[in-house]
């Protein structure tokens, strides 16, 4: 119980840092990569799946979770912390539906999660949550949204972003390749997410988990077969690009 502790754990350092929060951000950097893309009529979340032990059931390891019909999130960092945050967010989504008679906007639930995280950086006897979250979804008026929160409790809207291990590499890839035409269709947006993850994931399609939300449709987690097909398409496109370049060089 927090009341028994009389000393805050997260205190300022002499030069103005909150070290616990920064250590939490380090914990996030150790987690597996997650990428989020905001398309025109679709939002995509992709995570790097850690290889599952032989005897482990695959279905229990899910890093993309629905918060409501129209909102879902992926996280990077401590899975146990994420479970708590996701539970609270799910309750808040339903609570909002009850009191306001409207589904949450993505910004509202992101603000709620961020406020929750901030509270834990300023309470007695608690440590910050060691997760960064990518929250995607559609608002009631049909606008797609992507937000990112981090352990300090700040949140920002993004067109596309990556968190976790090798987030920097993926973000640089996205900065180069996220253009209006790259996300022109739903399929293109999905392929961009896969391409981004393939930069950092080791053995290709098997280690990627992908989820999409289309406007007015619930969360859909892509099956491994669909991902394999898309990966194969991407490989083919890459080869074609390489061929074209060779021909250009030759001529």
């Amino acid at each position, binding site marked *: 119980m927090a009341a028994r502790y009389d000393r805050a754990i997260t205190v300022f350092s002499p030069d103005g840092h909150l070290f616990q929060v920064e250590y939490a951000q380090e914990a996030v950097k150790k987690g597996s990569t997650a990428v989020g893309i905001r398309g025109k009529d679709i939002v995509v979340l992709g995570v790097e799946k850690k290889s599952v032990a032989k005897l482990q059931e695959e279905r229990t390891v899910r890093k993309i979770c629905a918060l409501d019909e129209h909102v879902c999130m992926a996280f990077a960092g401590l899975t146990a912390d994420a479970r708590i945050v996701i539970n609270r967010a799910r309750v808040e989504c339903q609570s909002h539906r009850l*009191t*306001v*008679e*409207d589904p949450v*906007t993505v910004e*509202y639930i992101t603000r709620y999660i961020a406020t929750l995280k901030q509270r834990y950086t300023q309470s007695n006897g608690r440590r910050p949550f060691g997760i960064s979250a990518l929250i995607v979804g559609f608002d009631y008026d049909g606008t797609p949204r992507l937000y990112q929160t981090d352990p300090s409790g700040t949140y920002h809207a993004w067109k596309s972003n990556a968190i976790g291990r090798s987030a920097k590499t993926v973000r640089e890839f996205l900065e180069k390749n996220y253009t209006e035409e790259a996300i022109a269709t739903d399929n293109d947006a999905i392929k961009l997410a896969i391409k981004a993850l393939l930069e950092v994931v080791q053995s290709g399609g098997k280690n990627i988990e992908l989820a999409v939300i289309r406007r007015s449709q619930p969360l859909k987690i892509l099956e491994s077969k669909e991902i394999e097909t898309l990966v194969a398409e991407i490989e083919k496109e890459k080869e074609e690009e390489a061929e074209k370049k060779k021909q250009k060089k030759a001529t």
Partner: protein
Amino acid sequence: MHSRRFRHTRECRQELIGRHLEHVRVDIEGATSLHSMAGVGRKKDGAREERRGGEFQHGVIVAVDSRATAGSYIASQTVKKVIEINPYLLGTMAGGAADCSFWERLLARQCRIYELRNKERISVAAASKLLANMVYQYKGMGLSMGTMVCGWDKRGPGLYYVDSEGNRVCGDSFSVGSGSVYAYGVLDRGRREDLSVEEACELGRRAIYQATYRDAYSGGVVNLYHVKSDGWVCVSQNDVADLHRKYLDEAK
């Protein structure tokens, strides 16, 4: 949240209610003394003033009278029974004046906070729900409030009836108060899909006038408001006596 409703039984509360208000009846002007000794309930109340609200395609028309009574004594003929929550939300007052105005002012505060936090106006459904949830916590403790929350939000015009019993209903038209039955007669007869703004205002005015004609506890002036997409406007204020003369002349 610890519900205070269950601390006393209903029977105990009712005795207290009557006695409590006996004292208050003398001090506070007008609309407070609306419980008869028999108990809390709209039908048993003798002394509610009445108001009427109706939704149609051009928004919401809200018409109220302005009489407050303490028993058979007319405490005031100039009560403002429409409470302006914010520029696009109106609340009407029936029941205890103190209860109505206090809770609706509290609702105005909540609505403003919502607006600041979420950068968009609160919907009528949410505002009425906030009010209903606030007073539900005091259910059984003697609050007396029957109000209509009227406004225009992104889903169009909205009209909700909320009272201190915990009722909250959405509807196209309501008539509340002691003279409500008379107003319903006029309202239901004259209601059409394709009313123009003037016709609807006249319908509201007529409904209130008829109620003041027959109901002893209604009278004074008819205050008429129109809630449009960009906010409410006060349309007119007509003394009931003038309306009487006007309708009499029209009939001749």
